[in-house]
């Protein structure tokens, strides 16, 4: 299967990058753990049907028919995203399985810093794959720009943590910056390394953006159905809808459940049922469907430019 083939090559690219760390007692293992835990480039799940780590390669191949020269960039994105995951775990401090919880924040910060440095090193390996210097500089510029956007989105998200009156517009803005920017970056880089023109690069960046927002909305729904976001008092799209539309006693229950200062641990089943009953999950599902549709419509524009979009369509279906 093409996924297994590409995942195997990405895996080898990352393993080669890790060679200089083989003497650093234990660090290499922690780096691998960070990459595997977050499904970032290493581990069996990378070869599953719709793997995010392969997206730059899939986009590059869809446009140009080749992808191997893009492998260092795909590896770089996985290393940088894994660094973000580790920092996220330190900031959230809500998982006993995370790297900082198990090894302490000092070791976790060092792992994250190493991942960032290795991500930058990975981009320079594009040179050995025959990518022109000017393109490598553009790749660095694009990656740095998206990483800055993701950090700004994370800052905004952290600043909003104590607030309940978050509008849908702000939610979409934060999601676009924090989560969708990763998918957008992967698509942008794939198109850039396929030597696509600016119009096509923009099409793929928009495809990645809308796909990323749809994916975050899907996570929000799962966060309710599994109860994980409810016990964390997390204000996600279904909750934003519910707080806007609910009245009286129903609204009071939601305010108590999602109040950040609340000491009460909400009953996930009761709140989940409430969110279903007022249409919050239905509304959120329609919004997810709408972003998926936008992603598909954007892809059809690429098809008009003679890009083979068949594999990319699979990512949405």
């Amino acid at each position: 299967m093409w996924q297994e083939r590409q995942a195997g090559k990405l895996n080898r690219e990352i393993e080669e990058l890790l060679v200089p760390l083989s003497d650093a007692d234990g660090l290499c293992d922690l780096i691998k753990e960070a990459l595997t835990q977050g499904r970032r480039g290493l581990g069996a799940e990378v070869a599953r049907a719709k793997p995010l780590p392969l997206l730059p390669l899939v986009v590059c191949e869809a446009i140009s028919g080749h992808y191997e020269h893009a492998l260092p960039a795909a590896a770089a994105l996985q290393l940088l995203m894994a660094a973000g995951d580790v920092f996220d775990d330190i900031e959230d401090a809500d998982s006993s399985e995370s790297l900082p919880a198990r090894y302490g924040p000092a070791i976790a910060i060092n792992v994250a810093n190493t991942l960032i440095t290795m991500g930058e090193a990975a981009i320079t390996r594009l040179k050995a794959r025959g990518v022109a210097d000017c393109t490598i500089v553009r790749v660095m510029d694009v990656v740095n720009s998206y990483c800055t956007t993701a950090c700004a989105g994370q800052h905004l998200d952290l600043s909003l943590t104590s607030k309940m009156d978050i509008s849908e517009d702000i939610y979409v803005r934060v999601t676009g910056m924090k989560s969708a920017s990763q998918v957008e970056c992967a698509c942008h880089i794939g198109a850039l390394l396929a030597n696509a023109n600016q119009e096509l690069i923009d099409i793929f960046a928009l495809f990645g953006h809308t796909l990323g927002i749809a994916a975050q909305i899907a996570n929000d729904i799962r966060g309710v159905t599994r109860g994980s976001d409810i016990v964390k008092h997390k204000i996600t799209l279904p909750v934003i809808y519910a707080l806007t539309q609910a009245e009286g006693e129903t609204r009071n229950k939601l305010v108590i459940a999602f109040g950040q200062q609340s000491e009460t641990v909400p009953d996930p089943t009761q709140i989940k049922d409430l969110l279903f009953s007022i249409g919050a999950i239905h509304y959120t599902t329609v919004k997810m469907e709408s972003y998926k549709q936008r992603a598909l419509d954007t892809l059809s524009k690429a098809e008009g430019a003679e890009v083979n979009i068949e594999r990319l369509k699979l990512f949405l279906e």
Partner: protein
Amino acid sequence: MKSQALQEMIKKVFSDEKTKLQFMSNPHSVLAQFNLTEQEKKAVLNTHAKLGLATADSQQLEAALDPLTYWT
């Protein structure tokens, strides 16, 4: 994306039994009462075709989420 009309429509469907029944049997007739964008209309109809109304956990809801679950 502003969604006020979509929010109003879904609020009506979930709070008014008559509208809910009408939506279940003929979603187009309910859609016609609200000023939704073409994309919103399409998303409402797609969701209706896949799930009917999302009123509880279901295999259909899980299936709708599945393609996007491991993205972020």
